[in-house]
């Protein structure tokens, strides 16, 4: 049993409500725990809608914001304590691809600037020639050539090309984990498949694990190995992707899956929507299950204490709902 690649223990992030701050507390993330093994490489999906906490999770893992409580351990070490070369090492091992292929480029510089930054600060190559070779290799993986794109300014390239260049950049460092935050939401349908395919190939051929953060359950179903479905900061259900999506147990996840429009005119939304559709204002801190006000199966005890994750029999699956208490 080697140390897991990434272990998140009871991560909680609360905004506001502190000393000298007006406004209520917003619990962005509550008691989130997750383990990504060192081997084999897996694609773990974090699925959730707006307000679920998935973006906060990505930001904490990448070290942009700190946790209110809990720990994130990278190969056994708490990332909050990393400094100097250790921190640089972490940067090399955990990389990211973001949603907006426009914003991630500094309009002042040519595209090659993003590669130069990485090569020089993370010591990826010992000579210019070696660096250039490395860049070419990475671009090849995503179907681009250096001479096509490196000397151009960002606004001269299409959104799809920009996103592919970002994927190439992440790959170049041969990281252990790539955090992909909605990598295909802002890209055309035609390129979506290509980028997702690149992710699968990187997992299979280069042994890179992915944290695929998205709101689109259809793509999650196509490429995810494991899935965590978040609702207002907490895990509603988790398990093997095929199990959770084909057989959702948590009422929220069931409502979610039933609402995804199937691209087949013969399969219409059949049942009337159970439960309350309108997104309620965020439940306050403390108190019971987050989904209480919208749940069609709610019970009194759900309002008082949050249900823990219960195992679903005979399936690699867990749901945070008292319905599944043994």
């Amino acid at each position: 049993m080697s140390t897991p690649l990434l272990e998140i223990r009871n991560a909680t992030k609360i905004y506001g409500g502190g000393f000298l701050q007006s406004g209520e507390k917003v619990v962005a993330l509550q008691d989130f725990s997750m383990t990504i093994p060192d081997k084999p490489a897996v694609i773990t999906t974090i699925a959730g809608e707006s307000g679920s906490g998935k973006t906060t999770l990505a930001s904490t893992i990448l070290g942009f914001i700190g946790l209110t409580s809990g720990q994130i351990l990278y190969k056994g070490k708490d990332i909050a304590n990393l400094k100097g070369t250790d921190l640089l090492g972490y940067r090399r091992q955990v990389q990211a691809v973001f949603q907006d292929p426009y914003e991630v480029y500094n309009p002042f510089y040519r595209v090659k600037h993003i590669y130069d930054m990485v090569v020089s600060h993370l010591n990826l190559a010992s000579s210019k020639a070696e660096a250039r070779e490395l860049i070419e290799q990475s671009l090849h993986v995503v179907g681009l050539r250096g001479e096509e794109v490196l000397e151009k300014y960002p606004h001269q390239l299409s959104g799809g090309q920009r996103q592919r260049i970002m994927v190439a950049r992440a790959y170049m460092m041969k990281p252990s984990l790539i955090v992909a935050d909605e990598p295909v939401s802002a890209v055309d349908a035609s390129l979506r498949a290509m980028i997702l395919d690149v992710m699968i190939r990187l997992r299979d051929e280069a042994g890179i694990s992915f944290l695929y953060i998205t709101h689109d359950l259809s793509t999650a179903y196509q490429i995810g190995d494991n899935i965590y479905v978040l609702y207002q900061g907490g895990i509603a259900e988790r398990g093997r992707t095929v199990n959770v999506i084909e057989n959702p147990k948590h009422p929220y996840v069931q409502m979610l899956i039933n609402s995804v429009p199937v691209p087949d005119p013969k399969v219409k939304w059949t049942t009337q929507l159970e439960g309350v559709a309108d997104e309620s204002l965020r439940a306050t801190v403390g108190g019971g299950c987050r989904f209480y006000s919208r749940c069609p199966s709610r019970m009194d005890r759900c309002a008082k204490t949050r249900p823990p994750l219960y195992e679903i029999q005979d399936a690699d699956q867990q749901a945070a709902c008292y319905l599944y208490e043994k």
Partner: protein
Amino acid sequence: MTTQRNGVLFHSDPAKKEVVLDVRNLRIHYETPRGSVIAVNGISFKVYRGEIVGLVGESGCGKTTAAMGILQLVQSPGRILGGEIRINDKNLLDLSEQQLRERRWRDLALIPQGAMNSLNPVMKVREQIADAITTHEGSQPKNKLKQRILDLFGLVGLPARVYDQYPHELSGGMKQRVCIAMAIALSPPLIIADEPTSALDVVVQRVIAQTLLDVKNRLGVSMILIGHDMGLQAQLVNRIIVMYAGNIVEVTPVGPAFEKPLHPYTQLLIASIPSIKERKPLKITEGITHDLRNPPPGCIFQFRCPYVKDVCLKVVPPLLEEEPEHFVACHLYAKEGQEV
């Protein structure tokens, strides 16, 4: 009865269906210093009463531009170069700005992208809807107006309390329903909905989609639903118009669109939809590859088509009816003697 117009053969029974919108040969260009970008390249289509027509295609295909063109809301550097847009047998392109303003909202309403963000944050909901009504119909007695607004709320499934609320007090789904209420306020025969659910959560999206269906069924209003979410299209529309790089490549009833798409582009589009019901290998395709300022002669899809032939490089395939109500512009299907 067979009629022919601009290379399109129509087999239809004119007594059966009433035409609400008739677009003929609409052309819209974007003028740039480096040449004109052809956004909409002479498209023609009809919308019948009581149907929802989907307008799909990748970004850059011109669907939003076409919708803006129909509404006469094209902004510089875009320009409408020609064509006809007939509603109630009047060509909108012939009307003055004043006449257009009177007709907008009454003959034709729009639910734009991100509509819920276009609600005025400092006005109560009721004032905004009342505004829309009184601007086009003149002032109304207060209690009648209130009743009318409350009726609209009922049609879109909004609780009465929304009447006195401000937009920021409503959730995203409710705001979008306010926008739908505003669009149907004057009972227009046609509503154009441009990605009406794109910024909403999945569950809310379903509710809004069902609201749109409800509205169509109860009021008999026709809709053009612009979008790229094929799942949503499958659930809502009766017919689909597929656009590629400013041209219509296929017009088909919704069933055949998914089961038997004829145009190679539509086939690629359908094949690349990820499904929540079935795990299958992802189909890779490339994006638009030709220069939008300099479209090639012949078929617009020639660079990406897996079945491209010699004739495709030279001759533009006309939009022909290959099966009942199913039109496609592709040389794979052009039969002898039917080319015009």
